[in-house]
């Protein structure tokens, strides 16, 4: 029988749910990209004008902090959002505890950040997430755009990091349940990435590619 004791919960989130989430995450991304690139054939102008040089130039400009005019116009937003994104991408990959888990199950490991760097990254990510939330609530034009889903996704991301650091320092809830909660939230996040707005993680490259080729290749104007 199913029971809510720690052992059962841990076994579930550590075992089958990890598989489910990673398969949903990777499969979802592959499916979305394949689906869109096949559909793009119907739009005759997409593949015709794709230009690798333009795409590269545009992506480099948009990935460098303050590389585009839009970022220079909004210096504080760029600052906060860059730190937020760097934290989200680097912390899960280079946190020692996560590497430990990989080694335990697959026998692979890589060099991680020392714990204090992970802590700093996590805390700044949480702070930046909260700042972004405040921006969403306080600016009239952003609040008009925002749907409940946007709030939910932002809170989910903040939640994953918050439970992570709380579990690490073993405060608030019982440490073991906090870990289970952290893993559960992380898995939910992975599952929803391909199917929600968090999908901008991989759609960024596709939309940027099209717009860069159109603006630079066809119109001969900058898109950054």
């Amino acid at each position: 029988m199913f029971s809510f004791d720690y052992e059962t919960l841990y076994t579930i989130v550590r075992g089958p749910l990890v598989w489910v989430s990673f398969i949903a995450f990777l499969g979802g991304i592959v499916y979305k990209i394949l689906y869109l690139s096949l559909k793009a054939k119907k739009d005759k102008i997409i593949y015709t004008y794709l230009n690798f040089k333009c795409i590269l130039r545009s992506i480099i400009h948009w990935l460098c902090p303050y590389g585009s005019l839009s970022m220079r116009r909004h210096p504080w937003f760029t600052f906060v959002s860059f730190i937020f994104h760097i934290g989200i991408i680097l912390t899960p990959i280079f946190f020692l505890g996560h590497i430990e888990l990989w080694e335990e199950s697959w026998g692979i490991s890589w060099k991680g950040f020392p714990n204090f760097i992970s802590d700093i990254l996590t805390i700044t990510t949480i702070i930046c997430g909260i700042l972004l939330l405040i921006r969403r609530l306080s600016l009239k034009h952003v609040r008009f755009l925002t749907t409940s889903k946007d709030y939910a996704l932002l809170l989910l991301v903040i939640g994953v990091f918050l439970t992570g650091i709380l579990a690490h320092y073993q405060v608030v809830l019982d440490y073991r349940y906090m870990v289970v909660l952290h893993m559960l939230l992380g898995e939910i996040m992975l599952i929803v990435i391909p199917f929600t707005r968090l999908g901008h993680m991989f759609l960024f490259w596709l939309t940027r590619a099209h717009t860069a080729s159109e603006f630079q290749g066809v119109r001969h104007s900058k898109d950054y």
Partner: protein
Amino acid sequence: MKEFKREIITDIGIDRVLDFLDEKRIKRAIDRVLSKESAARLKAFVQTCVHCGLCSETCHHYLSHDGDPTYAPAAKVKMTIGDILEKDGNVTKEDIKRYARIAFTECNLCRRCTMFCPFGIDIGYLISLVRRICGILGVAPQFIQDQVYSHMSCYNMLWLKQDEWLDTIQWIEDELRYEIKNARIPIGKKDSDILLLIHGLEAKYMTPLLMNMLKIMLVSGVDFTLPDIDGWDYTNKSIYMHDFETMTMVTKRHYEIATKLRVKRIVITE
């Protein structure tokens, strides 16, 4: 949608046409545009937008309305395409009127927002899809519709008939003879270098402009010709309704004339 407050404006091109429409036809037009004609780009753009609002301050409509959030580019997409997708195409006539208002009068499709969007989301394209839906339904400002229908019937934007065109050129030629001896404006001449296409207004209201241009062309001794049939107007107003069929028809006509007259180049004025 409670923040969307606008003065009520009547336009016979929108209000009168809406009287003839029903929900079924609206749904059919939406399905045609959103599922058959647009595919990957619509899906990718709509799904990628993270509602960050970086596009707002780039829009001159937003700026000139003192930062009214309903004029922000992403908000305009949310209130049109977003609304259609949310309702799965089952929209009412009032909705269509609102979409037409937003798409035709509150966005120029200038794509400045695209340049400032971190993802390069082409908001102009998304709004143009709304224009296309409205265009298919025939719900567009009367002024635009009138010019599109003029293109459909006589390949120019001002209802100028073929005999009126020939007559205009003839009297310009007459006038030019005061200044150039035995002036002769080539019209429908084969094997010349240049096919000169002009703006519709230049033939109807601004003939002195056209006369000056022709004077320069004649004196400079360029081997040119004007078309002797409909299709002399290079404007293509159907782009405002995203009426690709008429757009194709007009452009095709120019190339047909060029092929028929065996010219080397097409030159357009303005």
